[in-house]
């Protein structure tokens, strides 16, 4: 990257976000790291199990579903003792980012990623059952959880309050 072997520099302006749990997401390189991580996990699954690329993408999609659902939409509060008097202790990470603002660039990006994964996985498995069904559930739950109307909604009281 860069000319004549010089590294490519980015500027990291300190964001005004006071929530230390989410401000790391405003720095450069986060989106690229996320995408590269998914790609390398796919390569890993492919090399370890030797299955078809489509099945590997399904595995990645389902693992991505499990991990991001748990950390973005299930875990509430902050993983460190911030002296903010627990104002975030009832909010999941998704509800905390960008200070609760909806439809920001970060949120749109994070909503698009499961959809893209779904399209790749379904296409490469030729829309065959049962993988198609599992992939559809994954993308449906993730996208619905990220809709602006679902902000602070707890269906049937699941995951409400500590």
């Amino acid at each position, binding site marked *: 990257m860069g000319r004549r072997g*010089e590294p490519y520099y980015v*500027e990291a302006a*300190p964001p*005004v976000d006071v929530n230390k749990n989410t401000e*790391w997401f405003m*720095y450069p390189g986060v989106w690229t*790291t996320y995408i590269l991580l998914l790609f390398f996990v796919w390569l890993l699954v492919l090399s370890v199990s030797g299955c078809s690329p489509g099945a590997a993408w399904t595995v990645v999609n389902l693992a991505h579903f499990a991990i991001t659902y748990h950390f973005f939409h299930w875990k509430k*509060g902050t993983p460190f003792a911030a002296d903010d008097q627990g104002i975030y202790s009832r909010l999941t990470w998704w509800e905390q980012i960008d200070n609760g603002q909806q439809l920001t660039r970060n949120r749109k990006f994070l909503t698009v990623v499961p959809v893209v994964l779904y399209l790749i996985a379904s296409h490469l498995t030729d829309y065959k059952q049962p993988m198609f069904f599992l992939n559809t559930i994954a993308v449906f739950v993730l996208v619905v959880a990220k809709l602006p109307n679902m902000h602070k909604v707890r269906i049937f009281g699941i995951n409400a309050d*500590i």
Partner: protein
Amino acid sequence: MVRLPYVTALTTLFSYGLLFAFGQLRDFFRRILDARKPSNLKGYAPICLGLEDFYTRRLYLRIQDCFGRPIASAPDAWFDVVERYSNDCNKTLHRTTATTKCLNLGSYNYLGFAAADEYCTPRVIESLKKYSASTCSVRVDGGNTKLHTELEELVARFVGKPAAILFGMGYVTNSAIIPALVGKGGLIISDSLNHNSIVNGARGSGATVRVFQHNNPAHLEEVLREQIAGGQPRTHRPWKKIIVIVEGIYSMEGELCKLPGVISVCKKYKAYTYLDEAHSIGAIGKTGRGVCELLGVDPADVDIMMGTFTKSFGSCGGYIAASNEIIQHLKLTCPAHIYATSMSPPAVQQVISAIKVILGEDGTNRGAKKLSQIRENSNFFRLELQKMGFEVLGDNDSPVMPIMLYNPAKIPAFSRECLRQNVAVVTVAFPATPLLLARARICISASHSREDLIKGLEVISKVGDLVGIKYFPVEQEKTTAVDKLKKIQ
């Protein structure tokens, strides 16, 4: 504004992701293994939820030996660091009786008053014999000695304000004064990188708190306009008062505040200004009077000036300097004055002597020499570090210089390797800094000689090569390449 190579940003995010994943895995197995143990809580709620101290348990404790190292001598230019060992991967640390003499690049010993001084120490010992170590009383009862009143007048004269008030602890000065100055119905606008004491004081005051982008007077104006137009939340009544809080030198950035810009914006919108000079008083400015002197701002334009005695004056405690009316009001309402024990008399005497040395009233020019020494030392050190290719933050003349590390693994690597080569540095990570911007913070002192600085530079350069933190191209190589081109031409 930090510039980092893109690859470094990616690897730092990946490293934190890996540490986070491993921490979660260990927590998961710990929960399974502990499910069989009977709980001895018997109906009580747990003191802390498992998720709140995840960072402390799984990230901080792994490199605990880099923080909180005990020292066994006065924090002069060279000091003794106690060696510690651990038998369980840093969960518990044990002290040994062995100490190593290390170069001190971490103490806020800006003017060298931390160790025994030929003018201050005899007077401090005298005051210890006369007034004893503690007043054992609050200022309003029996704890107001002659020394305290003398120091208040001296501080007011030094800073350039009509009156001053003292407190026994620097942190408490901010967190107890701000609630006494502004309450519910008021507005506090503070810089986004303000110290925790200010954040705590602002939260404790009950006023509405808004944050403006670090050192950006234009954004401050935007925030002021928006808030003045909107008024108090929900009722939209006008604010009772507005205070803007900034710091002289930001201790994690080493940057100076853009004070003239901030003052002009505040004057335009009739907001009060509160300047926290904890790191800048006594360390910068031609006669050591802080950031106002350095940037040419009249102290009468800043409404409240706060400072601490722990950095440049080698003592403990803090002060507030303001107009007579404000100080009188604080003396009657501030709980830190009415209920807290007054400053220890030897500590007060230390500050009095230190200020006299700085002002030259002890009959020598040691004060002026110290001030020019720290300026030269800081500029020399910063220039050399930048020439070597490190990313060093901070403005010229500022004695605080953070060296960026970024990757979480480089924090313990840098700290431990420097200690092995007898240089003690302070490394700072999340949550004192943003997650990705971990740094090693160097504080230069007037008591560092040129040889000490050169030794420090050598060690840091070697360790920097080993750890891989020279993110910028080395300047010497550039000049030799240009020379080669010139020769060819």
